[in-house]
């Protein structure tokens, strides 16, 4: 199974010739590039066929890889496509002629400016622009709500979730299966049902201390709802980290005279921290992305980014939504990288790292 360099294979040259032909035929750089990547990627991964493979095997393998490439294309295209579209100078959801011929004047940042300007009292005012933007711009207010709710619900979910996961992963835990399925169920029960129940329950007056009018239409109500929805993710990730946890470390620590608190903070905590952080990230992203509970429970003042997007898509669809979506994609790329780093760190700490 010797690896043949990509450009030394005959298939590559056929592909290049075809790509050139398509480029000449369609006069479109984009189409040629998509063609080259889609049909070239499977070719690139063809390397590991054994020497005894027949031509049919090779063709079969190529078709298999091509199908995989198309599925990956299906997965990633919608997410990548909105990024250039958000720089559209026109209020359309599609590529204009100018965009396709890479005309700079067909691109603009107007929808990004619109994120800040939409809803402002005086978008072109000079005085108090910043405070006007901070207080009145619709998307800025939605972002503030989203972050406020997400951070607080993440803290609640991570605290309770980690504590419970510590209990659940103890070998002597009774009723483990029943309690785990109860605690995971907010993830399984359809959001509409959860939100309906919460809407009924939280709307009751004179039931909750400090909230005589009920918890619906309050920040606290939404935070509780989002914490509930984030908890399963924390439990799953932290229990997964603890499953590889060597319990003799605890005995070793105790044997050397450490108290329970010291053992927790010096031995257990550093080992489960990556799991805790990735659980917290999951809870955070769940809250940032959650819209059903917000639709049922929130007032206009408590609109979050997804809630604003939801009504934006339903009412006045504009490329501003694409600009917001692009920012959210960038944020998720950031979170994903963070998670990957944490995962590797956790594997290294637990001695599971490959090679």
């Amino acid at each position: 199974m010797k690896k043949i360099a990509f450009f030394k294979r005959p298939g590559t040259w056929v592909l290049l010739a075809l790509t050139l032909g398509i480029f000449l035929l369609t006069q479109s750089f984009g189409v040629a590039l998509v063609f080259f990547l889609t049909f070239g990627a499977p070719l690139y991964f063809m390397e590991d066929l054994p020497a005894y493979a027949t031509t049919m095997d090779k063709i079969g393998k190529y078709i298999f890889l091509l199908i995989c490439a198309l599925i990956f294309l299906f997965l990633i295209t919608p997410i990548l496509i909105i990024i250039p579209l958000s720089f559209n100078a026109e209020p359309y959801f599609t590529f204009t002629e100018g965009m396709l011929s890479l005309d700079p004047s067909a691109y603009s940042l107007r929808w990004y400016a619109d994120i800040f300007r939409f809803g402002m009292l005086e978008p072109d005012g000079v005085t108090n622009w910043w405070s006007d933007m901070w207080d009145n711009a619709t998307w800025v207010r939605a972002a503030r709500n989203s972050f406020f709710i997400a951070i607080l619900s993440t803290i609640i979910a991570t605290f309770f979730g980690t504590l419970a996961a510590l209990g659940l992963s103890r070998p002597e835990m009774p009723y483990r299966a029943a309690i785990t399925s109860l605690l995971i169920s907010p993830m399984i029960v359809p959001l509409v049902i959860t939100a309906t129940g919460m809407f009924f329950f939280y709307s009751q007056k004179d039931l909750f201390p400090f909230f005589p009018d009920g918890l619906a239409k309050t920040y606290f109500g939404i935070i509780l709802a989002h914490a509930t929805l984030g908890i399963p993710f924390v439990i799953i990730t932290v229990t997964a980290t603890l499953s590889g946890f060597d319990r003799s470390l605890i005995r070793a620590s105790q044997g050397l005279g450490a108290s329970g608190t010291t053992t927790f903070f010096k031995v257990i905590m550093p080992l489960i921290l990556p799991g805790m952080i990735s659980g917290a990230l999951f809870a955070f992203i769940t809250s940032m992305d959650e819209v059903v509970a917000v639709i049922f429970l929130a007032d206009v003042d408590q609109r979050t980014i997804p809630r604003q997007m939801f009504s934006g898509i339903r009412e006045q669809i504009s490329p501003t939504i694409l600009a917001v979506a692009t920012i959210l994609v960038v944020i998720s790329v950031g979170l994903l990288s963070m998670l990957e780093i944490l995962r590797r760190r956790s594997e290294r700490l637990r001695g599971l790292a490959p090679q």
Partner: protein
Amino acid sequence: MSDSTSPILTADGTPLKAKLAQTTRRLRIKALLLTLPLVIFIIITFVLPIGQMLYRSVHNPTGIMVTPNFAEAIQEWDGEGLPDDRFVEIFVKDLALAKKNREIGKTVGNLATRVNYEIPGSRSLITSTARKAKNIKEGPYLDALIKINKKWENPAMWLTLQRASKEYTASFYLAALDRKYDDKGDIVMADELYQIYIPILMKTLWLSAVITLLCFILAYPVSYLLSTLPMKTSNLLMILVLLPFWTSLLVRTTAWIAMLQTEGIVNDFMVFLGVIGDDGRIQMIYNMTGTIIAMVHILLPFMILPLYSVMKTIPPSYMRAAKSMGASTTYAFTKVYFPQTIPGIAAGTLLVFILAIGYYITPALVGGNDGLLISNLIAGHIKSTLNWSLGAALGTILLAVVLVFYWVYNKLVGVDNLKFG
């Protein structure tokens, strides 16, 4: 120095067995105490609200609230023919009183709405009768009512009022299952025109099955590829799966609108390639097709991840061994490889199916009219038509379906095996 008859003692003189039991109990309680705060939290924020929903789907307070004396009295009526005048007298007096008091939640309008759920078009009957009720001074009361409106001659009207006066009812479940009471009080199917919920529930199950199947077909080759590539390459390709997984649901739905609308990228591209003419653009969004495409995209990672984690554990040497012993690729695959991936398939399909049944956001945004699912109907009853009890009954039915599949998932896969990323 223990002989065989006396129990082994620990240092402080208690028998070892008792000491062990005591220690185990302490450890068990300790473990339970760690989970206790979260269990209480979940009970308050999740279990009680759902319990409230269940309660609301059978709770039927309107009759008792609006016409309390009548509600108590009418239970004695045997339901044959028209009720005695003594019942009607109490009804007329209660109605006049409710009309006069106008207390929130106890108005004639509340009762009219409640009765209207069962006999469409009877809303105005009740409200107009209530307006004239105070003028009815003496009996026979029933004749006076019939004078106001002929519909009071209908025994079904009185049977409905009797049902509306009970504290608990199955009426909302009947409505949710497209059934109703006929004029004699027996349960029959609703008129064909009013049968909406069972067809929608069936459509939801069927669409979820289609989506699950499509996810499986798309996920299987990709998971196989990811599990056979070297770690470094597969981690890189995994990003293509995880990035959609981590991207906001609304972002992905928006993206599909941009892709699939008639002036969208897919149509533009097909026109550009000459597959379709500029006037033959295909409607792919705001209908069932749009819902299926967008939901398959959103749920695909939930199928790929469990499949991948199972396939990764299957040694490639098994397939090589089968082939070296003369099996064809197809035979080796169906007899050796595929059976080993069944746990992953079970985990993935059940998870995707469970998530698909309850989907709300994507169908609401790209479903148009024929892509709506049961969740959208529930939300409609809670948010717009305000028939909360029917919404709760539909929600309970959906919950029951989901819980059955969750139970199967628990039996087959086990919640402990859920993993992300």
